[in-house]
């Protein structure tokens, strides 16, 4: 059985949701505590949503120094699939695994609502470009992705924009970017929550496409 680590930082609150979603796809979810210094043998790593360290200082800025993070960076460097969702995306940006930063939403309000996303860019373990847009929710205060012009051109040119809002970014994100990958494509971060919409009775099933891509990659 494939194993997916889900890291719990102090203040993570979508860690159980991510583990539940993973378990629905025939994979084993492995809970990893942020103070651990060794990553167990796993096939993929998810940094979940929440408010690591209360989002104090800056979202994700303290979590990047958690003892487990050097192991995550090493795992990513070896080509292992890593997904950062919401706060996990912010941690990935802070630790430098994916480009850009996440600013406050343009209207300075927390937003919890459905968004439509196009999957594009290069194929990654977490996505296959093309197909119909997916509808999954956002739930964040700091989801306004931003990068300087040079980074933006490089990211766009290299096909590292993996998820893009359709019909405008509700948070003001630059070029409607919802999720990006690293240059190699194995590390992906996105603000919306695919783990929330994986069951028909609870919101919808469009989030399944992200987990199905991982299942296919690991097959």
């Amino acid at each position: 059985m494939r194993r997916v680590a889900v890291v719990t930082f102090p203040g993570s609150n979508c860690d159980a949701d991510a583990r539940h979603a993973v378990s629905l796809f025939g994979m084993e979810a492995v809970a990893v505590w942020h103070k651990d210094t060794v990553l167990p043998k796993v096939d993929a790593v998810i940094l979940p949503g929440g408010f690591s360290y209360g989002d104090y200082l800056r979202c994700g800025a303290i979590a990047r120094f958690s003892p487990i993070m050097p192991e995550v960076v090493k795992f990513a460097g070896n080509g292992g699939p890593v997904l950062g969702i919401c706060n996990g995306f912010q941690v990935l940006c802070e630790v430098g695994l994916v480009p850009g930063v996440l600013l406050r939403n343009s209207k300075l309000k927390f937003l919890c609502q459905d968004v439509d996303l196009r999957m594009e860019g290069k194929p990654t373990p977490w996505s296959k470009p093309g197909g119909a847009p997916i509808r999954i929710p956002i739930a964040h205060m700091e989801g306004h992705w931003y990068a300087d012009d040079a980074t933006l051109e490089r990211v766009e040119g290299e096909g590292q924009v993996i998820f893009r809002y359709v019909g405008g970014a509700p948070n003001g994100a630059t070029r409607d970017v919802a999720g990006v990958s690293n240059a190699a494509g194995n590390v992906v971060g996105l603000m919306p929550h695919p783990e929330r919409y994986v069951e028909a009775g609870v919101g919808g099933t469009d989030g399944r496409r992200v987990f199905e891509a991982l299942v296919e990659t690991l097959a």
Partner: protein
Amino acid sequence: MITAEQIASHGLTPSEYQVVLDGLGREPTWAELGVFSVMWSEHCSYKSSRIHLKRLPTTGPRVVIGPGENAGVVDIGDGLCVCFKMESHNHPSYIEPYQGAATGVGGILRDVFTMGARPIALMDSLRFGRMEHPKTRSLVHGVVAGIGGYGNCMGIPTVAGETRFDESYDGNCLVNAFCAGLVHKDRIFLGTTGGPGNKVFYVGAGTGRDGIHGATMASASFDEASDEKRPTVQVGDPFQEKLLLEACLELMQMDVLVGIQDMGAAGLTSSSVEMAGRGGAGLLLELDKVPTREANMTPYELLLSESQERMLLVIQPGKEKQVFEVFAKWDLRCAEVGTVTGDGIWRCSWHGEEVCAIPVAILTDAAPKYDRPQTPRGVAPAVPEDLVPPADLGAVLLQLMGSPDVTDKRWIWRQYDHQVGTDTEIGPGLDAALVRVKGTKKHLGFVVDSNGHHVWADPFVGTAGQVAECVRNLACVGCEPVGLSDCMNFGNPQKGEVMWEFSRSVDGMAEACNALGVPVISGNVSLYNETGEQSILPTPGLAMVGLFEGERPPIRGRWTEGKRVARLGASGTHLGASLYLREVHGLRKVGSPPPVDYDVERRTNAALRALVRGGLVEVAHDCSDGGLAVALAECALEVGATLSLDDGSVAALFGEDHGRAVIAYDPSREAQVRKVCADNGVSLVSLGLTGGDRLTLLAGGPLLDVAVADLRARWGDTFPAWAG
């Protein structure tokens, strides 16, 4: 020597102070005076309300724990229980909206996880002054951000709520926060001490000077303690509380804990006294061992601080190491601060010197109880018989859809994470929220409701009607009620009319709860909600929880094409205390509220539950504010309909009569729907079919005809246009 002035500034009457002297057999110390002041405050002692609350039904086959603990607990089968409570944080939220509302959420979360329950849902009931009042907008922004800021960070979904506006709340907003959690029946924890020798632990945030009562801070002989006057509103840290939640739940899995209680109002004092009271024990607190976050705090300040995110634990002796380990893992403060004793006396020491020694029974059992005088007030004037309805009823409907109480509140609830936990099957915006219980076929329904206009017009009938409406809202998502938490927001109890309103409201709630089989398992009373001479509308906030087992029903809020629309129950006849009178005719406090017929309610609810659970209906929506017409319009925000009514009067359109709902179903289900209604003795009146982009109502001739787009715009745009 304690002066009469100091006694008064501590909120104690001369006769209450005499009880203190008689009980102690001596003059209290300064710290003890503070302790009596908070323990006998209205907030902690329920001295004006307690004799009335006893009339509420609090037992039932499902009730595991009723009022008196941190939260009530109801059995939902298979060893699982739901634990819930609603509490007010009105005054702090008016003074400092963000922190006041945030710490209201923080407090109610602690009440629930203290019981061993993992929180699964939050709701909020909010009241603000008129939209045009200069303070309202900033209060709304602050309160909503505060609720979201705390609940979102904790990762508990805010699944439902309600917000209304009225001039009586101009100077006194209401913020009532509800939390529910899940707990295994054999893992419920109580706020008790057990026997002598058990250890008292303090965990969580350090104690600061926040929340100490402003009036006592200003006391003349208090200069030695502090030159500054700290704000009386506490400051919340949801991150700290998230850690506290996880650490406490982790500790509860081990066999170390005897009792646990959160430090809410009156902080360390109230928590330790209440635990000792329930345990029938005494307690020694070594105040100098309490973790602090400010220097030079006095015993008085430590005892009265309402700093947030703190818990008091009683653990078995010899298990100290395990406690320290768990809290170290979560980077939380943890200190052994005392011992349970056998002498029934609550003692505090300060560097070895005793500063308090009060028999627990004096603080709890001897607390004053008042049967305050009641002055029945006259009923509201009758609805004028010569009322001339406007000619353009379509314009009236649009006006009501854009009115403050009906307009879409998405601007509010999209600032709340209503999905985290991935159990929210139906979120905000429908009659009630529906939350699944993973690993079971159970679904919990959540609704919060109150209509101060109905209650003002007749506190007994109005409150009974609100209970009935909550039960009906739950039936619209297939649930039957398992319990109620009440948050009684009223004015000054020393005014006879207010006390009368309170007492009648309690009686109305009791009657309806008995008739509809809903136990009251927890609650809170908030009095003195007034500014100058202006009392708020009597506002008993009701939060009800429902349950059903089975597949998630395929219900939605809006009609789709080609569905049969029907009304369950009779045509409306009752315009009293309605939204229509207030908004269209400017008649506030006019007319009696609609009466409640419990037999009709029971049959209608049974039919609704059967229709929803059986998957027979696509939409089920209760008629409440704005009556049948607004209920229909709320269903018609995507697809319209052409409907023929049996009565075209404004009372039929906009009356808020109980015992009714509108449903929509596929015409192929006609026979099954009719059978369910017939079996339950409920009248089913077919109104017509959905379709098109207009809502057209006929009654013999044309009644009103509005575009769906206009309904959507008026309903949807009003709030964001106002809030910005």
